[in-house]
């Protein structure tokens, strides 16, 4: 019996040792960039837990923001759960979260839906872009690093109409490239996602005659409408594409790594993705009309023929309440969102994820909205 007691004591002791504080939490890591200011919003010592969820495409950016923000405010914990945009908005609508990162702006009916964490529940919400990132169309083919494809070709591939890599449609745009006689496996997101919504939005507008199912344009859709190789989340798509030969997929450009990428047809030329080319689309697009002035949402000109614009982009919004039922939460959201749209915040994200920072003008509009949050 005493042996048993000793054993238990030993197990207990080792558990206590293990349960010591995490080295990176109580004493902030001195090598971290905590010395730099995090903007005017972090004046008082903040504390609490802020839960948000939404687009997984901006997970890398959120991770960078959370890290920098928590370094500056050790009492705060921000949980950003990259669940996908639709779910993020659903969870916000259910009162499970206090802000959402979303790849698509609020739908009109969502603007009218009550949000339990707002005061009043059917009160105003804010929405402004914080993240612009190109969606890369990438493929896994031995020995080929880049290909040119028109929107119609890409639509043909993803609707399972073009099934082989040496199809005439691909060959025509890529003179001099030896294409293998290999089946194309399109990989798509099996979960609902803003990346899919933006990608299909572009297909619907830039290749309206090819992006069809049962004779009708499929339009922009968050859940993939065709059969094939589905994978969960951006990581799943990347892993599935890596596992097979002859795969093609779409994902946030920051995640495509060593894959070959597609330069997409815009007007008469082919444009490879880059943050700069992606950022240009906002310049040629207009703000959606007829919405509350606490929301800034773009009608993206996907079918533009403007030179040097990469139209397969994802513009993600930060969404929350204008007036929170819980004042402490309002303060946390203001501080965190303020950091995100600050120049430093945008640079932190761009450094971590390689996306395009939002413009000075957009940041100022966003800050003006945020100042009214209470």
């Amino acid at each position, binding site marked *: 019996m005493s042996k048993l007691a000793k054993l238990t004591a030993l197990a207990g002791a080792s558990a206590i040792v293990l349960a010591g504080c995490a080295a990176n939490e109580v004493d902030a890591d001195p090598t971290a960039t905590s010395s730099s200011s995090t903007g005017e919003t972090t004046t008082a010592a903040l504390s609490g837990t802020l839960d948000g969820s939404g687009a997984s495409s901006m997970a890398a950016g959120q991770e960078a923001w959370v890290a920098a923000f928590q370094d500056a405010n050790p009492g705060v914990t921000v949980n950003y759960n990259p669940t996908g945009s639709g779910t993020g908005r*659903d969870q916000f609508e259910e009162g499970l979260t206090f802000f959402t990162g979303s790849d698509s702006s609020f739908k009109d009916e969502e603007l009218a839906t009550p949000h339990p964490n707002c005061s009043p529940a059917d009160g105003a919400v804010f929405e402004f872009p914080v993240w612009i990132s190109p969606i890369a169309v990438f493929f896994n083919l031995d020995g080929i690093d880049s290909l040119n494809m028109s929107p119609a070709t890409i639509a043909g591939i993803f609707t399972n109409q073009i099934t082989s890599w040496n199809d005439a449609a691909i060959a025509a745009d890529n003179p001099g490239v030896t294409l293998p006689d290999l089946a194309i496996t399109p990989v798509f997101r099996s979960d609902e996602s803003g990346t899919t919504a933006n990608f299909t939005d572009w297909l619907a507008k830039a290749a309206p005659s090819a992006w069809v199912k049962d004779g009708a344009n499929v339009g922009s859709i968050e859940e993939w409408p065709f059969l094939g190789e589905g994978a*969960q989340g951006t990581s799943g798509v990347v892993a599935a594409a890596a596992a097979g030969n002859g795969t093609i997929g779409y994902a946030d450009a920051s995640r495509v790594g060593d894959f070959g990428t597609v330069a997409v047809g815009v007007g008469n030329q082919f444009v490879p993705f880059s943050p700069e080319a992606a950022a240009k689309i906002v310049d040629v697009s207009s703000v959606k009309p007829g919405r509350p002035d606490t929301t800034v949402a773009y009608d993206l000109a996907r079918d533009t023929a403007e030179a040097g614009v990469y139209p397969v982009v994802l513009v993600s919004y930060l969404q929350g309440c204008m007036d929170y039922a819980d004042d402490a939460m309002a303060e946390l959201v203001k501080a965190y969102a303020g950091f995100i749209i600050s120049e430093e915040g945008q640079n932190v994200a761009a450094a971590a994820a390689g996306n395009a920072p939002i413009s000075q003008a957009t940041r100022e509009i966003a800050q003006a909205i945020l100042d009214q949050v209470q």
Partner: protein
Amino acid sequence: MAGAKATKAKVRLGDLVFSKSATAAGTLILITLAAVAFFLFIQALPAFLPEADFHSKADNPLEYVAPFIFGTIYGSLIALVIATPLAIGIALFISHFANRRFAQTLGYLVDLLAAIPSVVYGLWGILVLAPFLNPTYVWLNENLGWIPLFEGQVSATGRTMLTVAVVLAIMILPIMAALIREVFLQTPRLHEEAALALGATRWEMIRMAVLPFGRPGIISAMMLGLGRALGETMAVALVLSPSSIISFALLTSTNPNTIAANIALQFPESGGDYRSLLVGTGLILFFITMVINMFARYIISRRAEFSGAN
């Protein structure tokens, strides 16, 4: 006198408290199970009301869940078909073929497979097993494609129903092998010796004495393995390329997802009536496994009359 009476009363009190709390604990098990069914039911209910709104993720609850029920049962049955002969083989190897001294160690070795968390099986399945099996899938598709199971456009990644079934088979193998091994080891020596004394070879002895005796054990191990496979979540979620489709094809990218994996993938991202629907699918899974378990118990209880001689 008074003291004796008090002692007696005290003793009775101790017995009473103890027996009551033991009974209460047993009853709590029943309450818990009822609570599982109850809470799942009330959470699932909104999804089955006519005004349920699934945000275009599903039109009709039953249409939504049908492919997943199919996928759950289909994948588990294939896993069972793969695992059962292997489990019997392993059990026989350990109980009747291996050197006695090593048999126990070999048993531990197989039991270790049961100790590996399912999420690790999932990672291994997608990163190691799927690429390993894929060339074979291509071969099967090219040469045996006329069999409906192997038809269709073979997956480029190996994330197919067959891979899932193989992973599930490996996962249920240790529990099945352990159970069957225990039954085989309990084969009455008398029967084994009767067979040997008649001049049976080892295999003939197994056929005459061990297998007939172990048959109910094998069946209940199959049921238990099936139950495990039906409920397995993370390995399927990580490995399978899922679709909402009913298909028997084993080697394509278009596979019916399983209930459990679908819940794990969709639940954290769900809300409202759609989440209720997912809870409803969980309730269906609960009932499926419950029926399987009841059936297994029925088989085991029949075993008593089976071996009436002893």
